């Protein structure tokens, strides 16, 4: 199965269902889409053979489906030689094959000349041819018939009576943002198709734009006033950018200079850019732009959306003055930075955007500016932090020095005081010692004094005793008797003279060991 084809078919189916305001399966079921992708039908017969596609469906979508199939299959073929540009041989072979294919197609066409068509078949054949006649046509609106889903109108040539019937689906009409009024000169984009039940040719319009600068300017002013009155451009509606946006959505054309201007001026702040390619030129760009915006609306974590393109005339910037697009932008929750250049009048998308500048470069600058500021702030704060820290450090070390100085000073003081006390104490000790010694001396002195005195006393006593002894011994009468002396007493009286006695007296003679009684015999003188 051709999966890229299936993807394209599905996109087309979803888009179509949306345009017509019906459920997806009302257009084509998934099963039918898969069958188409598998069989790659390139003609009505091939397509109507697929289950789910009957005449009615074929009439509505047949040509579109076939053109999608053809474009997709052709693309895969063309891409083959491109991939191998260097190999001239292979390119040659591919070209030859392509030529062969073209030859075959030509033959088929010739065959078809001889073929007899049914009316229906012929109209199908014509419609298939007509599907490639996409064109822009300018004319005046002559009739108007607005239905629920489709608007029918007639377009008349300005110079002659030529007329063509046109139809446009409601969605595309609304996106075009041009109110059809009889007599207006407009330009329509589309291709022709024959409506089989009536055999009538009409221009299937996909986009309507106003013709002429003056008309454009008038429409611009009207829409601007209308939206302004609604308050769509008011300052209080503006969202501000996040402090430091990181993921940036970008809508612009991959072809123009704007994309380069934007990305090179964004700066190296590690932005993630989600880019959705969109045409930006002319009115037809409006569909692309709306699709891109809707895609971003579904995405998460987009910090800011940038819509940029270079400057241009009012005509080339028509898409940016489209009401539907302006409303889509207004409804976005993501803050929008618009960098769309302008000649004289600022585009309405710029006015409705949250931030508007006039170049893609300026848009990039607005987004990267807070980063510049942040980096500058980090640098500034960083050096401030270091300075402050150094100051603190210096203050601390100064304080420590002061403290340690005063500490050592006080400590020295203490030591000095201490040594003074010590000296004082030593002096006192000395005094105590001195007085103790003094006392000891005194005691010793007293001691020797006592001893001497007492010794003398003892000696004196001794002398006294000996003296007494000698006296007593001397006076002891027994001593005389022992020496042989005797004591004579008469009647108890010691006889000391001859007068005490007379002849014949009996006297007691006491000697050392007894008494002798003696008679006085003679007395001599």
């Amino acid at each position, binding site marked *: 199965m051709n999966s890229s084809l299936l993807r394209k078919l599905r996109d087309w189916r979803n888009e179509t269902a949306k345009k017509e305001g019906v459920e997806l399966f009302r257009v084509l079921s998934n099963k039918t889409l898969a069958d188409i992708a598998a069989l790659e039908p390139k003609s009505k017969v091939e397509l109507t053979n697929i289950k789910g596609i009957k005449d009615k469906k074929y009439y509505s979508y047949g040509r579109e489906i076939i053109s999608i199939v053809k474009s997709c299959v052709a693309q895969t073929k063309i891409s083959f030689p491109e991939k191998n540009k260097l190999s001239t041989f292979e390119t040659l072979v591919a070209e030859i094959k392509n030529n062969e294919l073209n030859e075959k197609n030509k033959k088929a066409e010739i065959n078809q000349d001889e073929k007899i068509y049914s009316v229906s078949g012929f109209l199908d054949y014509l419609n298939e041819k007509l599907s490639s006649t996409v064109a822009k046509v300018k004319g005046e609106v002559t009739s108007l018939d607005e239905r629920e889903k489709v608007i029918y109108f007639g377009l008349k040539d300005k110079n002659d009576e030529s007329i063509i019937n046109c139809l446009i689906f409601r969605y595309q009409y609304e996106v075009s943002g041009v109110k059809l009024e009889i007599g207006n000169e407009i330009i329509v984009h589309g291709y022709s198709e024959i409506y089989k039940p009536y055999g009538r040719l009409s221009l299937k319009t996909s986009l309507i734009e106003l013709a002429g600068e003056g008309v454009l300017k008038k429409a611009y002013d009207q829409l601007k006033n209308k939206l302004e009155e609604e308050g769509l451009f008011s300052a209080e509606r503006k969202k501000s950018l996040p402090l430091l946006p990181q993921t940036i959505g970008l809508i612009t054309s991959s072809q123009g200079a704007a994309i380069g201007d934007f990305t090179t001026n964004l700066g190296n702040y590690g932005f993630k850019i989600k880019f959705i390619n969109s045409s930006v030129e002319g009115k037809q760009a409006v569909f692309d732009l709306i699709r891109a915006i809707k895609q971003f609306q579904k995405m998460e974590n987009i910090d800011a959306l940038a819509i940029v393109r270079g400057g241009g005339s009012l005509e080339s910037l028509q898409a940016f003055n489209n009401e539907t697009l302006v409303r889509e932008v207004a409804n976005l929750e993501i803050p929008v930075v618009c960098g769309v250049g302008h000649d004289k009048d600022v585009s309405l998308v710029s006015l409705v955007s949250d931030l508007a500048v006039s170049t893609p470069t300026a848009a990039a600058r607005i987004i990267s500016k807070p980063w510049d500021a942040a980096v500058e702030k980090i640098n500034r704060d960083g050096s401030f932090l270091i300075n402050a820290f150094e100051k603190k450090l210096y203050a601390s070390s100064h304080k420590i020095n002061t403290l340690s100085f005063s500490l050592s000073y006080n400590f020295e003081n203490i030591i000095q005081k201490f040594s003074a006390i010590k000296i004082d104490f030593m002096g006192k000790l000395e005094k105590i010692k001195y007085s103790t010694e003094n006392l000891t001396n005194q005691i010793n002195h007293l001691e020797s004094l006592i*001893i001497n005195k007492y010794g003398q006393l003892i000696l004196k*006593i*001794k002398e006294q005793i000996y003296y007494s002894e000698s006296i*007593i011994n001397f*006076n002891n*009468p027994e001593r005389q008797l022992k020496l042989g002396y005797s004591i004579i007493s008469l009647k108890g009286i010691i006889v000391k003279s001859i007068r005490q006695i007379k002849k014949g007296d009996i006297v007691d003679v006491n000697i050392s060991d007894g008494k002798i009684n003696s008679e006085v015999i003679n007395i001599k003188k």
Partner: protein
Amino acid sequence: MEKTNLSDSLKKLEKIVNWFESQKDIDIEKGLEKVKEGVKLIKSSKERLKKVENEFEEIKKEINNED
């Protein structure tokens, strides 16, 4: 043995000595009594004095040892 009081003994001895020196004629009996008393006092005084001397010497030694 009753402790001899040296001072008392000396006083008594002094009295005895004085007694002898004051007498012109010494009564033999009385003199003998005094002598006997004196001899007794001298003997006890000498003993006491000896003891005091010894104690004094001891004390002196102790004092010298303390130095």
